[in-house]
């Protein structure tokens, strides 16, 4: 009802893109489920055609009273026509193929809210299939689960349309080949399969949060989509696992700093320099709620540690306790699962607790010379100890960095230290 009223205020020009973003993924998921994984592209085309038809006819005849329902009906009829033709085709050409053999069998395409929700969830499990590479999983998720256009996906990955088209084509072929089912995995596999889904959602979020893309709006969109999909997992009893809540908590805590970490010119503001007033208290509180929900069961995922670390980053009342906790959590995270980023962050936390000189000794053991972040860290740690060395590391970092926003931050730091040195 609300939706229908909101539509009334929109002009056709902005209404169609809006509906595309909210409805494309819903209809596509339902159609994919009806047609089977081998026909993802057909489902996409059908829904795409439906939107084209909307653009043509709404301009002439005016916007229908319930535009979303119009789209559902048209897409549904298109799909039914196709299925009828297919049945005819398969019966005439290859009668031995027994799919949809019953003449009277009318294919039902159920566009109820419940089925839309279920279909999207099942699609999520089908797409986050470990048999296809992670960047293809993210790309396909953006296309099918988030209604992104190929252009937008190409933008997000800083590449061109052809690359994305090829990547998605190969991924769909692989899903077809391996006969991946569009369904929730059986109970005994759910944890393992949910892990795959979470990895993809985590990468999708990071793609937005740490992206090399300068388009702040697009980056925020990627993060919000990752959060929306993770939230969808928490709404279903079967998939509402502690690790899912931990990941969502992590995302909330990070997202709470959206406004504080990027300035009006789109430049990155480091954690230390952020205006705490700009941190989003509501998102922090939400993160706390999800983190509490995550605290059940007897298994800790890496998201639990990361969420706990992110939680402590949102606190401001006791700096000593905060960094001790963060250091301890990084220690535990690393013991469970190594990652270079965690190793660097642990060392930074160590400097906050035990001072820069101790941290430098630990940092130099990490041997991550090829990482610009490693040199950034050493530049930071040396800046109180040895200015010359600090500048050398930052220059090395500048050489290695490929991310424009990071380069800017490094350059600023070098010029700041350069001035200090000349005093």
């Amino acid at each position: 009802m609300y939706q229908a009223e909101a539509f009334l205020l929109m002009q056709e020009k902005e209404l169609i893109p809006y509906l595309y973003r909210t409805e494309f993924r819903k209809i596509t998921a339902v159609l994919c489920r009806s047609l089977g994984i081998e026909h993802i592209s057909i489902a996409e085309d059908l829904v795409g055609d439906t939107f084209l038809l909307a653009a043509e006819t709404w301009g002439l005849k005016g916007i229908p009273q319930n535009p979303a329902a119009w789209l559902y009906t048209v897409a549904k009829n298109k799909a039914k026509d196709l299925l009828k033709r297919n049945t005819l085709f398969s019966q005439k050409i290859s009668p031995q193929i027994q799919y949809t053999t019953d003449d009277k069998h009318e294919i039902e395409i159920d566009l109820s809210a419940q089925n839309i929700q279920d279909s999207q969830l099942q699609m999520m499990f089908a797409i986050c299939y470990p048999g296809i590479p992670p960047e293809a999983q993210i790309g396909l998720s953006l296309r099918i689960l988030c209604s992104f256009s190929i252009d937008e996906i190409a933008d997000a990955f800083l590449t061109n349309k052809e690359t994305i088209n090829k990547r998605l084509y190969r991924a769909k072929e692989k899903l077809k080949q391996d006969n991946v089912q569009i369904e929730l995995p059986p109970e005994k596999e759910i944890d393992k399969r949910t892990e795959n889904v979470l990895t993809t959602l985590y990468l999708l979020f990071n793609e937005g949060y740490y992206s090399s893309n300068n388009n702040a709006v697009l980056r925020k969109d990627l993060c919000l989509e990752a959060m929306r999909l993770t939230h969808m997992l928490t709404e279903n009893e079967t998939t509402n696992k502690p690790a899912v809540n931990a990941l969502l908590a992590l995302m909330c805590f990070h997202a709470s700093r959206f406004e504080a970490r990027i300035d009006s010119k789109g430049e990155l503001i480091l954690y230390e320099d952020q205006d705490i007033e700009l941190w989003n208290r509501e998102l922090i509180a939400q993160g706390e709620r999800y983190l509490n929900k995550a605290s059940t069961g007897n298994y800790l995922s890496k998201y639990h540690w990361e969420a706990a670390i992110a939680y402590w980053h949102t606190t401001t009342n006791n700096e000593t306790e905060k960094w001790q906790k963060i250091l301890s959590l990084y220690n535990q995270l690393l013991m469970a699962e190594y990652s270079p980023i965690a190793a660097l962050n642990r060392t930074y936390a160590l400097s906050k607790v035990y001072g820069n000189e101790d941290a430098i000794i630990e940092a130099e053991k990490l041997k991550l010379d090829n990482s610009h972040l490693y040199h950034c860290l050493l530049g930071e740690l040396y800046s109180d100890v040895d200015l010359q060395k600090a500048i050398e590391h930052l220059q090395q970092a500048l050489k290695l960095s490929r991310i424009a926003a990071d380069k800017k931050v490094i350059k600023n730091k070098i010029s700041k230290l350069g001035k200090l040195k000349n005093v």
Partner: protein
Amino acid sequence: MIYRSEPMGEIKLTAEGNLEISKEWENWMGGIAAQNRLVSPGMRLGNEGRTVKPGNIITNGPYAEVKEIVGGLSIFRAESIEEALELANNCPILNAGGNVEIRDIIQMNG
């Protein structure tokens, strides 16, 4: 690495002391993990135990005839014994009068 020390008998440590010790261990092990050299943190062994000898002879405790007992063990990744020695350098057991034994691991096939 195998951690050895004298049996501590009844462990009488204040909660705070215990916390301090585990923080030391956690920081040390976290530092090794940060170098991607931790294979398994392994486990700490308690003081309760028996020793079984041929002829159904069972003696009390893991330390009936030795001055030192094994307090735990962990598995690390190192290219050489020398590299492992470096890792062992700051092991907290050295501050508690114990020692670390470094051994290579024989890979079993199959």
